[in-house]
């Protein structure tokens, strides 16, 4: 299970990186969203998969699956939600302000 999930993580990362290297801002944002999916899975995998019961003590199992990564991922999910929403709004504000969502034209102000 871990192996295939790791490979899945790799595929997600590949896709995300490819999207990040796009011109279109929306693609980039989507890329970051997928990146965060990937890292959540990675964190999960690193804690070990299916190693025990659901981490609810009422379940009366001998061993529980590693709860710490779950807590971390939860935090990470919320943070990435916050960032993604901000980035999205930024994207549309930028589009409204500059009339472009093409990063190749949004190079910033020229010095000379």
């Amino acid at each position: 299970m871990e192996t295939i999930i790791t490979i899945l993580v790799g595929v997600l990362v590949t896709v995300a990186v490819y999207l990040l290297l796009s011109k279109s801002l929306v693609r980039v944002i989507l890329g970051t969203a997928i990146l965060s999916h990937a890292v959540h899975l990675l964190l999960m995998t690193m804690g070990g998969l299916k190693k025990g019961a659901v981490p609810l003590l009422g379940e009366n199992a001998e061993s529980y699956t590693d709860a710490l990564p779950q807590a971390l991922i939860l935090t990470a999910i919320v943070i990435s939600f916050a960032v993604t929403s901000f980035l999205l709004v930024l994207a549309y504000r930028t589009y409204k302000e500059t009339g472009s969502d093409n990063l190749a034209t949004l190079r910033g102000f020229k010095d000379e």
Partner: protein
Amino acid sequence: MKINDVILQTVTKIVVFIILTFGVELFLSGHYNPGGGFIGGLVLSSAFVLLYLVFDIETVHKGIPFDFKKVAAFGVLLAVGTGLGSVLFGASFLTQTASHFNLPVFGATELSTVMLFEAGVALTVVGVVVTIILSISEDV
């Protein structure tokens, strides 16, 4: 073109009620079952999202006239405040305590500072999600 989807609006009225109840339930049961402040808050806010989707900002605002930024700020205050509360009692920052009470209606209940903390979390989540959605939608 009016939104005149009676079916949707009727169903929503019921569904939102279910979601809100369920959200509160999730929030309260978090210490023993899946759920907690975050999830509870998120579910509550998804109920608001549904309301905004189906109705419109004006209508919803008539029903729930909160400034959600303040709600969120209050939530943060609550979360941080519980931490500071423990400082006042001479314990480490963010020390949580719990004790059991026998309340008339609920029977033996555990009341803990975690509850307050989680309430803060939930309020913030609701406040923030709604603020974001409202801010964007109002910017037409």
